């Protein structure tokens, strides 16, 4: 009985030794093809081991196969359990050999089965691929590989990294590799001194990730290193504190720029013209839907232009919403000048109609508006993370603001516009065609709301309800800043944004928002005409 048990254990050890990396690495019969084929029957746990063995072959030819696996493009043929990389073509799959990359013909959809993958496997693959591509001749791939190893460190990659570092010539890649080596070293069985040096290296790199790495490693490290780890974490954290404040300001400015975008069209239709324009939000929505339509057309007819889709959508959205604005002004609002509160009712009706129109045409569900590549992802600035889309939105909203300011102050249209809103009768007796100035002013406000919609489609839902979620905030911004003052809208939007973001961490998002509303109410008591109020007798008249 006992012997039988021993035998069984012995047997298991041998089998696992046979399959273990060290064995495979020694080169005896670790055929990559059979390892890959074994994936067809493996569960997640077994697949993880197989990937380890594949990585251990050091065979760079396997990279496409691993990549395909992590993308979910690896299939096995039901008839013979052979594994291939599959790409959909029509109703069947185009198969290629995972090792050689040679074409292996086609297979019907039901003749192959996808090999299941999950997050843990993807993590293992990332690390394995990192190891395999560390020596790639392509600098970009090496950098990616170093990143991959850094994000999923494993002691197995340590020697590989050291070899790679010794051969590396590019400074940035080398630095990344050194960092990755330090991180990998912490989980290895190297000496305490080496580990201490690694901790110092990580500390020098700093940032949130470094804290995570150190905290994660501290449990398994030798107790004598604990003091070093704690000191390193404390030093990184103290450096991070200022950056955190900076980050918060950035978030605030970015929220402010979104508010500015949403409100700036309203600053014209409501602020300058005095129309309580409840359909403003729907103009933003129409702009977002214009973006969607433009992207659809581009996807169908000229996919290469996708990165330009937003640039193309801008004038389209401006014209579409401007035209709709023109129609609304001519059809409804022009009968209501001098009756501001009634514009509220009529434009509320308009907003219901526009919402339902969009719902009838596009359906009630969200539409997908893609981010062009230059608006995806993020980059670090010191201890801060800046996302590209937020950065572009801030730049975009400020440039709209400046452009609008120039139109209002410098162009003859702007002059006419100000003349009409200040004294309609006088302007008309001076030969200004006031009805058209009104119409185009409203169209301008609507058009600007439309291009705001283009930008907002990048960060929010594109659904018929889009406008509703911005309308209240927009009114708050314009009123807070002072009706009729563009600068007020700018300062109002940014200060509400920053205020919101500074309240959020301490009281939570919900209470933060409530507090901001209460502060606006109190502020209006102090300054009943907003931040940038016009003073003097003219206001009362």
């Amino acid at each position, binding site marked *: 009985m006992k012997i039988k048990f021993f035998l069984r254990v012995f047997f298991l050890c041998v089998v696992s030794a046979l399959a273990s990396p060290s064995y495979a690495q020694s080169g005896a019969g670790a055929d990559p093809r059979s390892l890959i084929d074994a994936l067809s029957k493996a569960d*997640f746990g077994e697949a993880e081991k197989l990937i380890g063995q594949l990585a251990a072959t050091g065979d760079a030819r396997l990279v496409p196969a691993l990549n395909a696996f992590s993308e979910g493009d690896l299939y096995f043929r039901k008839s013979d359990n052979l594994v291939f990389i599959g790409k959909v073509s029509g109703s069947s799959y185009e198969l290629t050999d995972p090792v050689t990359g040679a074409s292996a013909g086609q297979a019907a959809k039901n003749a192959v089965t996808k090999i299941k993958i999950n997050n843990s496997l993807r993590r293992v693959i990332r690390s394995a691929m990192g190891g395999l591509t560390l020596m790639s001749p392509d600098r970009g791939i090496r950098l990616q590989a170093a990143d991959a190893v850094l*994000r*999923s460190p494993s002691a197995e990659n340590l020697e590989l990294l050291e070899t790679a570092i010794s051969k590396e010539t590019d400074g940035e890649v080398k630095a990344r590799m050194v960092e990755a080596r330090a991180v990998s070293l912490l989980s290895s069985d190297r000496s305490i001194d080496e580990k201490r040096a690694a901790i110092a290296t990580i500390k020098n790199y700093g940032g949130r990730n470094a804290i995570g790495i150190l905290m994660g490693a501290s449990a398994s490290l030798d107790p004598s290193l604990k003091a070093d780890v704690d000191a390193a974490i404390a030093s990184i954290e103290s450096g991070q504190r200022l950056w955190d404040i900076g*980050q918060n300001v950035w*978030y605030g400015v970015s929220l402010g720029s979104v508010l500015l975008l949403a409100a700036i069209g309203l600053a014209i239709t409501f602020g300058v013209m005095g129309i309580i324009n409840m359909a403003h939000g729907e103009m933003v929505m129409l702009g977002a839907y214009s973006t969607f339509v433009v992207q659809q057309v581009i996807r169908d007819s000229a996919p290469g232009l996708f990165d330009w889709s937003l640039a193309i959508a801008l004038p389209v959205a401006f014209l579409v919403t401007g035209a709709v604005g023109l129609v609304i002004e001519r059809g409804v609002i022009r009968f209501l000048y001098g009756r501001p509160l009634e514009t509220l009712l009529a434009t509320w009706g308009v907003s219901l109609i526009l919402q339902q129109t969009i719902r009838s045409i596009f359906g*009630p569900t969200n539409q997908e508006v893609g981010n062009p590549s230059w608006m995806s992802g993020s980059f670090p600035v010191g201890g801060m993370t800046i996302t590209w889309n937020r950065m572009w939105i801030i730049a975009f909203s400020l440039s709209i603001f400046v452009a609008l300011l120039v139109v209002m102050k410098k162009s003859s249209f702007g002059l006419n516009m100000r003349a009409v809103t200040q004294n309609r009768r006088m302007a008309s007796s001076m030969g200004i065609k006031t009805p058209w100035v009104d119409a185009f002013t409203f169209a301008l406000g609507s058009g600007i709301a439309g291009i705001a919609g283009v930008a907002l489609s990048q960060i929010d839902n594109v659904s018929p309800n889009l406008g509703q979620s911005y309308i209240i905030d927009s009114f708050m911004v314009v009123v807070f800043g002072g009706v009729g003052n563009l600068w007020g809208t700018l300062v109002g939007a940014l200060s509400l944004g920053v205020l919101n973001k500074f309240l959020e961490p301490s009281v939570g998002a*919900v209470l933060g928002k409530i507090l901001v509303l209460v502060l606006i109410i109190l502020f209006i008591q102090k300054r009943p005409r907003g931040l940038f109020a016009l003073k003097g007798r003219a206001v009362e008249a």
Partner: protein
Amino acid sequence: MTFKSKLGGALIAAVMSTTALQGAFAADDTIKIGVLHSLSGTMAISETTLKDVMLMLVEEQNKKGGVLGKKLEAVVVDPASDWPLFAEKARQLISKDKVAAVFGCWTSSSRKSVLPVFEELNSILFYPVQYEGEESSRNIFYTGAAPNQQAIPAVDYLAKEEGVKRWVLAGTDYVYPQTTNKILKAYLMSKGVAESDIMVNYTPFGHSDWQTIVSDIKKFGSAGKKTAVVSTINGDANVPFYKELGNQGIKAEDIPVVAFSVGEEELAGLDTKPLVGHLAAWNYFQSVDADVNAEFIKEWKAFTKNDKRVTNDPMEAAYIGFNAWVKAVEAAGTTNTDAVLDSIIGVSVPNLSGGTSTVMPNHHITKPVLIGEIQADGQFDIVQETAPVVGDEWSDYLPDSKNLISDWRKPMSCGNFNVASGKCGGKGS
């Protein structure tokens, strides 16, 4: 007689005459069912689809010869995402249109609003959306998931397969997330997770600026322990949340997010490439490999005349509810509420994941729990499927409800029987 009185009189007359007309022309060879889903307002985004599904199911059933030899007729009304209007419309469907059963509601608020109406007028509601549990009405069938049919298996999966040790419970500040998170917190702590390893965060409805929260999640996740986010964020707020996740570079391999309110419909509004690997837990995914599902998807695409329309979990729940009702009516031989309530318990109908779902005595149903990972094409890749689970209306992880059970079979006929005291609570008879 002043203008006002004339007007008032005319209005009363108008309402009464429409009532009378409807009554007079209700043909005897049809059975009416009510469809109570918002077609406008904030919830239209989710609910309109379910209205379409119901119309499709009715059409299909009529092709098969209807029910009890009569044609079905769907009465569609729009409660406009307005909760009191739900109650009004429910009353209208039951007492004016005399429908045999109603399929509808999405939010818990709308269900809570119509519940007294259904109990008072003794009619039947099939509610097809996952919800927080803690309810069992004689007149309502809950074909969506209770927390134990969605949340707990999802957390189990993350703990086991991904080795998650640290949890962010992020939700919209309303009852479903609050309750689910309470249950999850109790569950996780019962599994030995320290309280400091659980972060709970709530945001307002329609929250669109996720920068701070996503970076907080990142911070919380950089404590060296494997971290996951359990998201009970409600519909509209998900798109900006996922966009922010993608942009701040939170990859599923690092901090996976498992969501209970994000399905194929929600993903249709998103570029899912940066989200590959994030998870959702449901009882159905469109990607389920089953003949019955393929058939359903084909019908749906044909019915909506749109090849891009997706299917999702609440649609399956509506499908199960509808078929269970049809089967129960045929077993009872009548649409009479009491008879159907008796005959429907124990009814088993095929679900879309290839198995069957049974209506249990607690008015919840059995369903398997599926965990899926988001794919680049907006579909889910199913990484785990459990055996069918019975919906648990009274959570075992809340101190006050763990002693309650519900059994609407005679003689107990009680929605909240307290096993400790041996008494039926306030409701029931």
